[in-house]
């Protein structure tokens, strides 16, 4: 990962200067964010119908504020047949009735903003549900005005050789429409036809959707499946130049009319390919660093920092106003598309021995079960997430170590109800348990009786309390969100050590990736005479001198040191 420079330079008029700085800095809020990803359906049910809703979510905002996060990313909550957990949208400008009303959403938004929590929503730009009125119209007749809003063909032989994203479930990227007697293009499930962005009307329609939500006050969009907007014969139909032109167009419009709003790209590609989605600072503000994520898990299992170092060294420099978004787990499977076959086999053998855990070239498990409920490993990975360069995303439930259910279909095993307490339905809903949208996790290890927010709140030493304090520490020092990174590469490969720098602020992070105690000698010559102060206990460590700095770490232990020169 390359250097990220200090905040913007000085402007001449002091008063204007301050407001300009504040404004500039406010517009870069996403760089300092700690994002909490959740699905409104899974979080809290306020009306006893067994499905989480916005009112319930609003009631839990205090919890989120207490946790220390400052942005929430909501999975799709739009009207949908729910054949892909809401990513098959049937109406872009409304709220699924089970989750509440549009007013409920607006109330939630206001309450979040009052707590200085920003809200990022989904914008599924690539495709709609086949139940969407646009598609219903398009398929009704070949002459319909919306026919060209989707990609049609009389044969299924166009765009040969293009990768199928859900192998095993889908046999082809073309599906036969019996109504209009032709094929339509879908990169995802067959009930999710791709929109045709070669048609300017589609772009305008999508812009209207964006405007609708921006006008309600949302702070940003995660654009789903963005690489696949455009198709061209003889290509992979991904990452095409025309796609970037569309993104730039959206970005121009947003910057002009809604400054300070953020666009986050979901592009599961290699680092060099993701780089293009930042453009020259004129496309996405953020993009997920997909290749880093599996390598963090790999490094801990291998007890070797090599996978992390290599991928970060391959990560290209991005524009100053842009930021990587890093994460451990999310609502999808832990994708292994961007690793080698050898690495994929290794990950399967180590983390997904049971074939039920594997889906779509990935692993459908949560963080805690993958770490075998080892508190130290969970803390280590969380520490990495919060100290490596990028905006961290925490998946709901990982802060308390929630478990999963790999025997639920698709990826629903990682989308079970939030566990608030050990009582009725884990405090998620007052409905009959049979009515819940998904069964609770109820085994003795990860079940809601053992893992829940209330019981962890009572202990200052629980995973929840620990997560809160780490987020708080991270939020107190801007160096984590905006600083540069310099890897130290000590001779002990089981230790990952780096220094984050932002102006005079320097933080040394040392991580023991192994299950056994380690000794490491760090070359800190560049920081001679600095005093390391351990950031959680605030204890002084010996001053850095001429000799290599010797540290010993327990299994999976990590240190954050402030390096102060006094």
């Amino acid at each position, binding site marked *: 990962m390359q250097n990220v420079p200090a905040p913007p330079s000085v402007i001449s008029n002091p008063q204007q200067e301050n407001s300009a700085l504040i404004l500039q800095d406010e517009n870069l809020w996403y760089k300092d964010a700690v994002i909490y990803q959740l699905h409104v359906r899974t979080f809290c049910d306020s009306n006893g119908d067994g499905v989480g809703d916005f009112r319930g979510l609003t009631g839990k905002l205090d919890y989120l504020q207490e946790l220390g996060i400052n942005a929430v990313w909501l999975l799709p909550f739009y009207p949908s047949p729910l054949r892909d957990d809401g990513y098959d949208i049937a109406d872009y400008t409304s709220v699924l009735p089970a989750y509440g009303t549009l007013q409920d959403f607006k109330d939630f938004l206001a309450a979040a903003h009052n707590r200085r929590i920003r809200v990022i929503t989904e914008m599924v730009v690539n495709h709609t549900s086949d139940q969407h009125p646009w598609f219903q119209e398009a398929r009704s007749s070949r002459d319909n005005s919306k026919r060209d809003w989707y990609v049609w063909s009389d044969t299924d032989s166009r765009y040969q050789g293009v990768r199928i994203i859900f192998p095993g479930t889908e046999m082809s990227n073309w599906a036969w429409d019996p109504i209009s007697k032709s094929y339509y293009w879908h990169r995802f499930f067959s009930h999710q036809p791709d929109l045709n962005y070669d048609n300017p009307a589609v772009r305008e329609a999508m812009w209207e959707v964006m405007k609708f939500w921006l006008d309600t006050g949302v702070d940003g969009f995660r654009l789903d499946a963005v690489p696949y907007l455009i198709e061209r014969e003889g290509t992979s139909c991904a990452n095409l130049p025309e796609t970037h032109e569309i993104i730039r167009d959206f970005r121009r419009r947003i910057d002009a009319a809604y400054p300070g709003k953020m666009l986050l790209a979901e592009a599961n590609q290699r680092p060099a390919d993701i780089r293009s989605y930042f453009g020259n600072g004129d496309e996405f503000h953020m993009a997920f660093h997909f290749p880093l994520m599996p390598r963090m898990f*790999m490094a801990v299992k*291998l007890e*070797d920092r*090599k*996978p992390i170092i*290599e991928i970060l*060294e*391959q990560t290209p420099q991005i524009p100053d106003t842009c930021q990587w978004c890093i994460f451990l787990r999310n609502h999808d499977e832990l994708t292994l598309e961007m*690793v*080698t076959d*050898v*690495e994929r086999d*290794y990950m399967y053998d180590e983390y997904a021995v049971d074939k039920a855990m594997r889906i779509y070239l990935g692993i459908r498990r949560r963080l805690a079960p993958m770490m075998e409920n080892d508190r130290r490993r969970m803390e280590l990975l969380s520490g990495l997430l919060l100290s490596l360069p990028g905006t961290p995303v925490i998946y709901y439930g990982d802060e308390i170590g929630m478990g999963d259910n790999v025997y639920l279909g698709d990826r629903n095993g990682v989308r079970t109800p939030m566990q608030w307490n050990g009582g009725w339905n884990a405090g998620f809903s007052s409905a009959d348990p049979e009515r819940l949208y998904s069964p609770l996790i109820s085994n003795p290890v990860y079940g809601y009786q053992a893992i829940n927010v209330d019981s962890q709140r009572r202990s200052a030493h629980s995973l929840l309390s620990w997560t809160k304090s780490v987020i708080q520490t991270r939020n107190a020092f801007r160096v984590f969100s905006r600083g540069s990174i310099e890897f130290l590469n*000590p*001779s*002990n*490969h*089981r230790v990952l050590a780096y220094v984050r720098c932002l102006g005079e602020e320097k933080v040394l992070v040392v991580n023991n990736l*192994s299950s*056994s105690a*380690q*000794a490491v*000698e760090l070359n800190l010559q560049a920081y001679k005479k600095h005093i390391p102060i351990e950031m959680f206990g605030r204890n002084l460590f010996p001053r850095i001198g001429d000799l290599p700095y010797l540290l010993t770490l327990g299994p999976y232990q990590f240190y954050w040191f402030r390096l102060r020169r006094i």
Partner: protein
Amino acid sequence: MAEESFLGDDFLRQLMSVGEVDLLVGVPTYNNASTLGQTLYGVEESLRQNFVRERAVILNVDGGSTDETRQLFMQSAERSDAGHRGLTSLRTIHRISCEYGTAPSHGLALHNIVAAADLLRAKACAVISPTTTNLTPSWVVNLLRPVYRESLDFVAPLYARSRFQGLLARNLLYPMRRAIFGQRIREIYCEEWGFSGRLASQCLEKDVWREEAVRARPEAWMAITAIGGGLKCGQSFVGPKMAPPTGTDIVEIIRQTVGNFLWCMETNQPQWLSRSDSQPVPTFGPDHELSLDGIPPSQEKIFELFRSGVSELEPILASILAQDTHAQIKAVALSDRSKFHFPLALWVRTVYEFAASYHHTVLNRDHLVQALVPLYRGQLCSFLLEHANASAEAMEAQSELLCREFERQKPYLVERWKLKR
């Protein structure tokens, strides 16, 4: 006062950084800059292709090279890491280097390697020579895999040879070792072999590293320690054996090999005195490969050296051999070269009488071993005369016959060994 450790601080620090490993490949060097690159390539490729998930270290132990061999080793490490950034290997392949002294010594080199193997708790180890110019990645995996996956403790290499290679091994070392220690391992005097961490730990505990016999041929001592200790031994085919770049000094080689073997017999008596037959060992790949290339060496010179040796060394041989054995050898030495034949039974009895005399120290042991050289030449000459144009099968049959003769006469050896003087 604490005893001085032979492990340097820098070496220990490097071992600390590596930590526990599954595989350790030792590369002892002394001025091998010209061939080291190829060796390292073979080792690394083997590890990358065959042991993707295993934790591995390549350890260079250097005897004070003056041609920057060590620097080359470390530089090639950096280049290799950079060249493989295509993420083909899951793990870091560690590379560490140490200098064990200012002059080369096989024994010291191996001492450092087994110490590293013990400290790093390596499960499988191999020693690879940088002078083996025809080394391929398959050599390394063929030595490591039987140890790592089949839990063997010592794996000797098997070579494809031309028929006039390895005659000392064929006519003396192998048959004698097979009869004495009861295991049919063909090659223990080798440049590359595999061994387990368990064997490394056992060898490390033994206080014999200063003995000349161990320093000269540590691999053979290690093999016999494994055999004598009841550990699992085997052999694995690697490839063709190349001739050494410089000429062979048979006297020096016999001093090292036979001297080492007799010393091992002396120090492992309980392990062989009561053993009576030999067993085959697990073999990976072909048991042997013998090509019919090669021109037979000049027998005239060999015969001349045998005859003059028998005559000039008469008083010495008289003190070593039994009277009738000595008389028979003198008679054989007087025969015509064209009809020369050194009977197998006589050869075996001679060798055993030498072994017993070594045990009783009838004269300086190194001198005793040197006195065997002319007699070996006699046997060699007889072998060459009889097998100059023999097929590979015929040569193998002869070898088997000789092995059986050694086994048959073993009680005679035991009797002479136990004789009170």
